[in-house]
């Protein structure tokens, strides 16, 4: 599903975010990216949805090298990738329903699809009955659930999550992880960057560890350290 081949990405001569990174993620896999701040986790995630392009190497997503993909094809790529962020990135002037529906609306899904899929995904993330609330009327965990619902409503092939539990207390974070695990169980590949040792250790999924842009460990059913 995802393959990186000798990828190097730098922001300047001094700041090299990724050095000669190579790995492969199979369809339906769940992968943790771990490492200290500045190790290149977020850059790697940004490479997967073409927010960034590497100087060297190839990034294969769903069978296509996206490095030289024409700009007009990028939206189609992104429709197959859901994004979850640490700060949720919810639209504060829209309700829970509207935030989730927004994803389908801007890619031109018809209204009957929206009215069918949004309640279903809100049910899945445990927000049924809160469709009309605004983000500032929800707890942090609920806001992140909206973010996950928004990322998953289009049934993407890949879901990338950048520190999704970073702003949440441990119990709420665990709830989000259970949710991501359920989504992964539907066949969606999940790649998640995290600092949360407890979560990584408890989930026992594949772990790719980065240190100053270099992959220093790639372990199946791994732990944080």
């Amino acid at each position: 599903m995802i393959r990186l081949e000798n990828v190097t990405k730098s922001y300047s001569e001094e700041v090299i975010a990724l050095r000669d990174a190579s790995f492969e993620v199979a369809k339906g896999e769940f992968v943790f990216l771990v490492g200290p701040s500045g190790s290149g986790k977020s850059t790697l995630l940004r490479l997967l949805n073409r927010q960034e392009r590497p100087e060297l190497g190839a990034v294969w997503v769903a069978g296509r090298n996206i490095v030289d993909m024409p700009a007009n094809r990028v939206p189609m790529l992104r429709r197959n990738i859901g994004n979850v962020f640490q700060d949720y990135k919810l639209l504060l002037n829209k309700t829970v329903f509207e935030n989730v529906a927004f994803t389908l609306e801007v890619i031109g899904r018809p209204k009957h699809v929206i009215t069918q899929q949004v309640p279903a995904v809100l049910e899945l993330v445990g927000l049924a009955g809160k469709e009309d609330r605004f983000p500032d009327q929800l707890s942090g965990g609920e806001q992140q659930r909206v973010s996950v619902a928004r990322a998953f409503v289009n049934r993407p092939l890949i879901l990338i999550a950048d520190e999704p539990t970073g702003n949440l207390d441990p119990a709420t974070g665990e709830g989000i992880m259970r949710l991501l695990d359920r989504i992964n169980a539907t066949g969606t590949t999940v790649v998640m960057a995290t600092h949360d040792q407890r979560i990584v250790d408890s989930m026992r999924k594949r772990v790719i560890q980065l240190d100053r842009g270099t992959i220093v460990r790639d372990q199946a059913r791994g732990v944080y350290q």
Partner: protein
Amino acid sequence: MISRIGYVLRETAASFQRNLTLTVAAVITAAVSLLIFGLTLIIQHGFDNLLAQWEGGVEMIVHVNAGAGDAQRAVIEEALVQQEGITIDTWRYCDVTCSLADADRLLAGDPTTRELLTAENITTQYKVVPMDATQVDILRGLRDRYLGLPNVNTVQLAEEQLDLISELQGFVSTYTTGLWIALMAAASLLIWNTIRTAMFARRREIEVMKLVGATDWFIRLPFMLEGLLHGLIGGVLASGALWFINDRWTAGVQGFPDNSGMTALVVVDGYQWQVALIILVFGSIVGTVGSGTAASRFLDV
């Protein structure tokens, strides 16, 4: 498709409300600049009416008494033919229909006088293009000679009014053109800035839209539509103001003395509606270009 159109219209309306003060400023600036653009066209047309009888390099007009028949005019034409290739390059006869059409334009601001002119009493004209228009003395000599011919009512030389009007036309058009270009640039920049502000206010939304796979065109469209509406509304206001000003001016000219020389400096032939259409199209283009440029430039918020 319908949901996309609905989305674009909804977002455009929301953006209008969100940036109300900037929107009003952009619309007013667009309206003022389009009004001056329209006035420039109208004034030009007014001057063209003033100079209508002198179009095509005509420097001398021989007015023939009303009712003069072919036999009487033959004397005048013989005198003109004698000078062909010597002092006269070409000449043409402007019959009753042609002379009445000239009167329509020249007396557009003086309908009372125009109503007095009929096919029976209007003078017909010979319009003369000289070999060299700068040889004023030769033209004056011709005028004196033709004044002595039978059935010649008057002989008019362009030098008496053409130079002054042309100079005035050049002066007015230069300054009004400069003014509308400057104001149009200001309007376009203001629309550009309004759209930039709107995009900045919605940067999180745009970021999310891009991440979930919205195309750049889909994101740009509401902003471009907003700019187009700025220009279009400005155009509607400018067209209304232009109609009002033209109407008041035309009414005012009717009160001018007959010998003021201003009676033709009006536009009453429907040209103002063409100008209104030009203003609407031009305003829409300026608004779309301004907003389209900003929407492309600031898409990576």
